[in-house]
């Protein structure tokens, strides 16, 4: 039971965590040293902004052909936790008194690729349970800050593939899309119990409200990107526009909405006094992907403006992307207290339902001063929260100094700094960045190291 409960706790906390894993945004020490900002025209820019298809990679901007992370953190980790003894390692053994589930979750969210030069402290504080026959108060103390007041979860959308061909700025391709979103909200009673040390009550339901969706499919896409001003000049100055129209063919979709928890009985701690599990969930799914698709239309737009050292861009994806699923099965699953089991009933079949893809966007800027100084920033929203990066680099001969800040999805400021040396086609970079794990307010510091081949 202990293992199962701890595993459940991990799931709960993992779900509660607003994706700190994204804090480790790159294996490139240069980018980490600039707080996560990328000064090159790759990655998120081309993914989210169709206008960047028309913008050439800037020559001499430090685009590496290959960047290889130096995993000093892994070396340290396996030194501390020998791989042949992991099964008996107190860190992974719930029966050990040294076992701390928070550390395990932090490990998952902050994979030890790079060296942790300052560990974020694992929170510890006393927890007080006050209980009587019909009273139960949980005072988590300082740990109450860990209880989310609003919705928490994870989600995002991605392009699983992008194949196509183009001519004169036009491009036709087929993209694979995937969207998943998992959101939870503590019910009022449970939130008050956990966050406000409110006493548990008899005949009261304590539950978590959930809303989860996953959908995927293919989307034939016709796009255009081109330079609308400044054409013919030998520089990159000008305005670039990009747009794409997309016809979505959803192949699979599942959505679940409901609540789960338990209801207390007439007494909390007397006699057999069982609590009654509570589950009430509606599920929606397409019946047969081979017969019908979830159909919809949407599109992307983007613009890039380049003027000398200044570059500004913005792109928005999946505008108006609403999918209609013509053949949906709707079911309801309830916990049947009489039968002491789950009961699923058909609510409706072969009915129409609709889903939406989240609008995602990126806005970016870069300013190259010509003195070896480049600053830049971006704002990225992949459908669940906005991340902001601002950073810069100063090159002095073969040396580079970098710094930057970012605001993560939990609206916490993080800082990066670092440097590097480039010897011909070989570059060695080091970057430091702060990060906050899910369960502590204090920041840790990671040192990233990487080798780049130019």
């Amino acid at each position, binding site marked *: 039971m202990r293992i199962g409960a701890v595993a459940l706790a991990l799931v709960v906390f993992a779900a509660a965590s607003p994706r700190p894993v994204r804090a480790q945004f790159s294996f490139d020490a240069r980018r980490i040293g600039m707080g996560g900002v990328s000064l090159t025209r790759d990655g998120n820019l081309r993914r989210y902004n169709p206008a960047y298809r028309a913008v050439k990679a800037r020559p001499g901007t430090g685009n590496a052909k290959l960047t290889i992370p130096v995993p000093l953190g892994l070396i340290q980790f396996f030194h501390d936790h020998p791989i042949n003894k992991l099964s008996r390692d107190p860190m992974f053994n719930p029966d050990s008194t040294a076992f701390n589930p928070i550390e395990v979750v932090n490990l998952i969210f902050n994979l030890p690729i790079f060296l942790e030069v300052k560990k974020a402290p694992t929170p*510890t504080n006393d*927890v007080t349970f006050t*209980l009587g026959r019909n009273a*139960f108060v949980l005072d988590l103390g300082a740990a109450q800050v860990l209880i989310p007041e609003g919705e928490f979860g994870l989600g995002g959308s991605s392009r699983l593939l992008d194949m196509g061909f183009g001519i004169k700025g036009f491009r036709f391709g087929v993209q694979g899309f995937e969207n998943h979103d998992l959101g939870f909200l503590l019910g009022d009673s449970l939130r008050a119990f956990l966050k406000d040390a409110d006493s548990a009550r008899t005949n009261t339901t304590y539950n978590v409200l959930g809303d989860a969706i996953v959908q995927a499919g293919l989307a034939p896409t016709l796009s255009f990107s081109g330079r609308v001003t400044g054409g013919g000049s030998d520089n990159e100055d000008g305005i670039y526009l990009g747009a794409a129209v997309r016809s979505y063919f959803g192949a699979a979709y599942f959505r679940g909405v409901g609540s789960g928890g338990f209801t207390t009985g007439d007494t909390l701690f007397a006699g057999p006094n069982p609590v009654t599990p509570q589950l009430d969930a509606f599920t929606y799914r397409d019946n047969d992907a081979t017969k019908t698709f979830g159909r919809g239309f949407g599109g992307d737009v983007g613009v890039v403006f380049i003027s000398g050292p200044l570059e500004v861009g913005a792109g928005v994806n999946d505008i108006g992307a609403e999918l209609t699923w013509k053949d949906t099965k709707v079911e309801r699953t309830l916990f049947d207290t009489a039968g002491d089991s789950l009961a699923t009933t058909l609510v409706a079949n072969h009915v129409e339902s609709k889903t939406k893809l989240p609008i995602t966007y990126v806005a970016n800027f870069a300013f190259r001063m010509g003195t070896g100084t480049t600053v830049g920033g971006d704002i990225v929203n992949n459908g669940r929260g906005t991340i902001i990066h601002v950073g810069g680099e100063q090159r002095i001969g073969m040396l580079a100094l970098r710094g930057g800040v970012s605001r993560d999805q939990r609206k916490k400021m993080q800082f990066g700094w670092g440097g590097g040396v480039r010897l011909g086609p070989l570059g060695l970079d080091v970057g430091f960045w702060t990060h906050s794990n899910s369960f502590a307010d204090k920041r840790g510091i990671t040192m990233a190291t990487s080798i780049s081949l130019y």
Partner: protein
Amino acid sequence: MKATASALVVAAALLSAACGEGRAIFIVDVLSFIQPSGKDTIHYNLPTVVAFSADSFITPQKVSLPPGLGKSSVDSVQVTAAAVIENTTGTGSIQFQVYFSKDSANVYTTTPYITANGTISGTQPSTVPLLPPTSVSLSDSVFNADQLWVGVHAGIAKNAGADLVGRVRLTTLSLRVVLQDKIF
């Protein structure tokens, strides 16, 4: 599928497990488990005119504790108790004892955790101050369980004179159990 333990406790313990090496402190209002049965009150009635004594034991009462306690290591335990004598007539003395056990059969075969003596002076009601918060032995295995049985014994001695009639009522009986953070 019905849970046999309070899921509230499970949920709470999950969170407490998330609090690293912090201690889990359980404050248990034992009296609240006894009151519904009326066993928090012991009546006495010693009518003879000569000195006399009598013992009264309540039926052991069960206290349901969080299920995780069975796998936890107890760091320390404190027991706090108080009672009031509501005497009608007569004078005498009382010895008040509180017992805890893991099973009902052995409640009164163990050494009492609290023993207090009071004098019934006739002034009504008179309060018998039992022991102040009392530390019992560390890592006491009695409290390392999912359930606890509690017993109360009142040994009453009557002085010569008027009938000794009245009752003893528990007003406080609570536990403060400090655990190492190993709820499950």
